């Protein structure tokens, strides 16, 4: 058993180190996420976790970028693997103060312009909700995955997890307005070598109600 696990790990490591070699064996998962009315859902994070728990987590994931453009977080939803550092460049003329109170990562970037000196490392799986203390309407999400195999849906509601090793996976989906827990979306899927596996979700979402940015009738909300 130990020997077989060791061989599997070696094969997995080799697949990650030599993409050309892995292409012949690795597969992909194409996930489609729609709402109750069949409309595609954007910004849904699809995560695949091997059933046997075998995962090769990069020891030093590359730093990712989460911009602030026109006083909004871009992208609004960013999925990363645990341990990934994120840099928060500010492209606006006004300074921002990015913070999070989420248990998965509490942090605060004091008022800054341009690119912060240090990235923020997200080392604990979970959802991190971002805000700006200057612009209350700004909201963003960092989904910190325990698995290296994940993808985020685009406007067409599809997400592709490429180069995923063959095997049995438990897949789940998360969205900021997901009605109910993420675990409730769990589906099992077997991925065969060199093949494309498809999976679908139909989610019930809560209506999104953000802090108002548009000018209001009593002319308040800007300062």
């Amino acid at each position, binding site marked *: 058993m130990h020997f077989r696990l060791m061989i599997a790990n070696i094969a997995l490591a080799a697949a990650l180190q030599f993409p050309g070699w892995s292409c012949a064996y690795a597969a992909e998962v194409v996930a489609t996420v729609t709402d109750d009315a069949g409309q595609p859902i954007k910004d849904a994070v699809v995560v695949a976790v091997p059933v046997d728990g075998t995962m090769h987590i990069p020891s030093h994931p590359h730093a990712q970028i989460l911009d602030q453009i026109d006083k909004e977080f871009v992208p609004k939803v960013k999925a990363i693997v645990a341990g990934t550092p994120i840099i928060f460049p500010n492209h*606006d003329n006004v300074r921002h103060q990015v913070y999070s109170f989420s248990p998965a990562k509490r942090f605060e970037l004091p008022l800054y312009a341009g690119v912060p000196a240090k990235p923020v490392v997200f080392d604990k799986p979970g959802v991190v909700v971002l805000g700006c203390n200057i612009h209350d309407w700004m909201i963003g999400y960092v989904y910190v995955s325990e698995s290296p195999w994940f993808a985020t849906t685009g406007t067409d509601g599809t997400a592709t997890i490429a180069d995923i090793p063959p095997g049995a996976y438990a897949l789940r989906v998360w969205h900021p307005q997901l009605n109910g827990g993420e675990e409730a979306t769990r589906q099992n899927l077997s991925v065969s070598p060199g093949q494309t596996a498809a999976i679908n979700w139909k989610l019930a979402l809560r209506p999104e109600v953000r802090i*108002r940015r548009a000018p209001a009738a*009593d002319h308040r909300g800007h300062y």
Partner: protein
Amino acid sequence: MQIDMADHNFVPYRRGFESNRHRACLIATQISCPDLGRLTGGMSIRLRPLKQRLFCRPARAYALGALLSCAASGQAFADWQIYVDSGLLHDSNLSRASRAEDVRADSAFAVTASAGQFIAPTGADGFTVSADASAEAYDRYDGLNHVAAGGTASWRHKFGLGYLAPWTALSASALHDDYRSDIRDSTYVHLLAEAGRRFSETFDASMGMILERRYAANDDPVVPGISGRVFDLAGRGVFVRAGYAATDHLLVGMRADVRRGDVVSTSKRNREIFLASSAIAEDPTFGDELYDYRLRGTTWTASAFASWALTDTMSLNLSYADQRTQAASGLDYRSRTGHLSFSYGY
């Protein structure tokens, strides 16, 4: 930019018009004894001694220039803020008259605009300075048409991190109103202190205090010994407001104001209002037989609004205000105002 409902609430005291021709006529003839009797409803009166009033004429050149310079010095991280609001309003009692026969209603096209800069010197503080302008054009009583220009400086402080942190704000604004007639030309100064808190993404509330002063530019007395500065007004008030985002697009809210201070009621001559007034001026805007009387009064205003966000920068707004004033000597009046507008701001 900080333009609030208090501005709308003060509109009644700012309305009025007197043509230059009529004013010239008044000055030429001055007031005669028959005029006096006409104004007082035929009663005998005791002329009040003319007070030596210290008229503090505010500087025409507002501190706006200095404030804008101040903002420009920190513009490395300053953010431009532009705001335009235009729409229609209807007022059921423009004359703020107590008697039904004196009530005048009308509708107007109103536009408000401001351009300013926002600076965040710290993570908890925001400072905004803006140049403001507004105009109103009435359907029937075009004497009320006017333009206004001025500036606003405001500061906001948050007590903590996050959108749930309580906050306080101070705001000072000055506007010069230019009506067609000189009688209502004036400079309006408005000070606001407000504190509030957001309780969730959908609900927020605040309360505040307002001090306002209007300095009339001209004095055209029609009764010897009684001031003609009807629109020289002072008032102070408090308010509470709450807003609720029913959906991502729809924001609804309510506000309640109580204001104590000077009000202007337009009426035909009568004894009660003459005795209660501290200033009188003839006002041809609503008819030759109507006069403006400055009174002391307490005004309760209940208002509600709904705002539909078209985008992050545009909205359609509908507001309604019910204003009840208890003025001296039982000269109470009521007015209702509706406002439909399109707003653009970033």
